[in-house]
């Protein structure tokens, strides 16, 4: 399947001129603007400061996960274990905290554990074991959620007592929510790595033509290990943010389906399962679009059950539009 961005996301070109920028983000970017204008006109509460901060805060977890997934999808892979990894991260964090580890060390240990798990198991099996990414991460999705349940016995553990965790999930810095600031920083870092480092370029190369990348001197296996490590690291950060916001670990329900909504956002943002295209700016727009859409549905008093239908329809519409424009 030749998907969305194959022909049109100009990840390759230099977005110096406004027309180029416009072309790159025209599809979903224009839709986002239209949606915002529409909601501003029809919903009086939409443009309120609180509502905007609410949108940003609730979607910062998805965005951080989407940053990691952007690396994976551009490398022509997929990580289905992101949601379960986030849930397990929360459980692991709560275990560390209740067993007396300091809050900051516990936060860093959680992120490190997730990273290692993702790089070694997901990355290792895919890059060196030759396993299909779908199979490996599907198995890990089951396995990690299971591990979260086993470790916690399925019982949420409160993290309310630990200020740093609460701060990461729900704090305020310079008048802005901490998770939002954190998400923006991670997004910028990801963007810079993708755009301006040799590593970022090799991710695009591996996704664009794996054999060509290998023969040109890129260590494809290491790139693959790295992208699954990055995806898991982002899931680790999401875990801290989510646990803080919910004031507890939620082994059963935390981040259920997160990987799929984040993947939808990444695809909306111009990446393609064919690999080699997409970028984190696009993913940010994709997350915002889905976030604003969900918010609009809530504000309009439409049952939130409609959210899934809207997301799916938008995704198909975006890809259809992209294919028409490519012709």
């Amino acid at each position, binding site marked *: 399947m030749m998907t969305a961005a*194959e*022909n049109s996301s100009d990840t*390759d*070109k*230099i977005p110096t001129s406004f027309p180029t920028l416009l072309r790159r983000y025209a599809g979903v970017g224009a839709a986002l603007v239209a949606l915002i204008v529409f909601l501003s006109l029809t919903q009086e509460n939409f443009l309120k400061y609180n509502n905007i901060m609410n949108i940003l805060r609730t979607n910062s977890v998805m965005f951080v996960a989407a940053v990691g997934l952007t690396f994976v999808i551009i490398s022509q892979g997929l990580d289905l274990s992101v949601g379960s990894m986030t849930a397990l991260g929360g459980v692991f964090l709560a275990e560390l905290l209740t067993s007396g580890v300091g809050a900051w060390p516990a936060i860093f240990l959680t992120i490190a554990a997730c990273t290692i798990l993702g790089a070694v198991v997901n990355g290792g099996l895919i890059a060196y074991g030759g396993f299909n990414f779908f199979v490996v991460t599907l198995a890990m999705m089951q396995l990690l959620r299971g591990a979260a349940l086993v470790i916690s016995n399925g019982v949420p553990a409160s993290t309310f007592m630990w200020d740093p965790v609460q701060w990461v999930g729900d704090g305020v810095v310079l008048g802005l929510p901490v998770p939002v600031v954190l998400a923006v920083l991670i997004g910028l870092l990801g963007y810079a790595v993708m755009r*301006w*480092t*040799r*590593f970022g*370029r*090799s991710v*695009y*190369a591996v996704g*664009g*033509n794996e*054999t*060509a*990348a*290998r*023969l*040109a*001197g*890129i*260590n494809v296996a*290491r790139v693959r290990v790295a992208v699954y490590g990055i995806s898991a690291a982002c899931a680790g950060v999401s875990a801290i943010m989510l646990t803080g916001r919910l004031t507890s670990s939620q082994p059963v329900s935390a981040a259920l389906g997160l990987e799929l909504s984040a993947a939808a956002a990444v695809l909306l943002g111009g990446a393609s399962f064919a690999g*080699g*295209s997409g970028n984190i700016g696009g993913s940010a727009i994709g997350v915002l679009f889905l976030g604003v859409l969900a918010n609009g549905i809530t504000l309009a008093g439409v049952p939130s059950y409609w959210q899934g239908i809207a997301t799916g329809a938008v995704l198909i519409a975006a890809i259809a539009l992209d294919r028409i424009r490519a012709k």
Partner: protein
Amino acid sequence: MNSDLPNSGLSTQADPLITATGIRKTFGPTVALDNAQAVLYPGEIHALMGENGSGKSTLLTILAGAQPADAGTITLHGRDLVGLTPAEARARGIAVVSQEPQLAPALTVGENIFLGRLPRRAGGVSWRETHRRAAEILAELQLDIDPRVAVSTLSLGRRQMVEIAKALADRPQVLLLDEATSSLDEADTRTLFALLSRLRAAGTAIGFVSHRMTEVMEHADRATVLRDGQYIGTRKLSETDEHELVSMMVGRDLKSYWHKASVAQGDALLRMVRVARGPLKSIDLTVNRGEIVGLAGLVGSGRSALLRTIAGVRPMEAGEMFLNRKAVRIRSPRQARQLGVGYVPEDRKGEGLVMHWSLYRNAGLSRVAALPVLAPISERIDRAAYAQGTQGLKVRTADPRQAVSELSGGNQQKVLIARELAITPDLLLLDEPTRGVDVGAKEDIYAQIAHLVRGGMGLMIASSELQELIGVCDRILVLFQGQIVADIPARDAREETLAYWASGAHLIGAA
């Protein structure tokens, strides 16, 4: 234009089998064909020639009904064919073998040959019948391919033969081949043309597009030349020569097709001593600075494997290798680049270029890959690499920011070569550097090779076009079953000699 009548080159009493006259075809603003024509008689092998973009493949696809012409007429046995579709064309006995593989790799050879019309029996497919008839066709082609094996297990060259078998399953009266030999080696090409001669004798009209001049000179009866979508002329091969055809194609006289450089050779650049790896057995060779060493051999003889071993793709398992007199063990393509070894793989789409990337990015890939993992980069690296690598290569593009997939094969190849030149290699390894490349671009590439070797670079070129090796190289090594069996100075080399060694004929004498 030209006043030749379409059949001016032929003295035949027979009526034309299939004719196309006044064909016009546009793609948006691009005029692919304008008043093009071709006339094929029963029992002839007819070459359609022209540079890339001349419209020869488009003309072939129109003849095959794969796309409609905007204007013009096609007749079969003197009757007009209107609105021809691929299915109708097939039903009327027009078969086509296209350049891009059309086989399903997971299916067996027999299934592929009869795909869409598998022999049926009692509501199901008769596999026995399928395989029996497939075996019959393969035997006719003198191919020892088992119809029960999956196509994915076959080499590129063998797959191409299966494509041809598939086209022949309907016993066509017109057989059209679009660069059918570009992925075949000498032996398979010979088998193919032997088959085409038999079909010709049986009265089939055969039209083929080829970039290999030797092939045309040797096997075709007549040739029709197109240039920029226009009909230039038709010649009988017995009444023309290579020079006339090439000048018809490019529209000017080419002084010298080959650019042989006579360069004083310098020190040994690469030395291999008893190197072994997989199919390669005890390879001893030396490449000097300012020397072009050719590698001849059949597909599977180890000529590509040898280049891959030097390039670090499949590191050597035994033996010694010296670069600039220093012992090296090249373990990865990256390390090879860092040591000054450039490598242009055989399959530029599958293994060389990232097709949806820009020319700039593709040109920068090898240079970028040689950097430390977290090194900062910017578009400037790509532009610099492109500027350096394409110097003298005459890449034809409106904008180097366009996707490399939009270029012609020749220009794509130039970008791939530019990518390796951007790392300023001492030793450049080229695997099939002119496969599927038009005459003009070939000339540019040969000129660049001559220029590079004058600058003291050493080159190794693997090619299945023996004439190319003889024309370009200083010395030719012939590989047979993973071993170097002959080392012949190019000035003494003749195609027959190279083919003798490549086919293992020397063993027959010894036995």
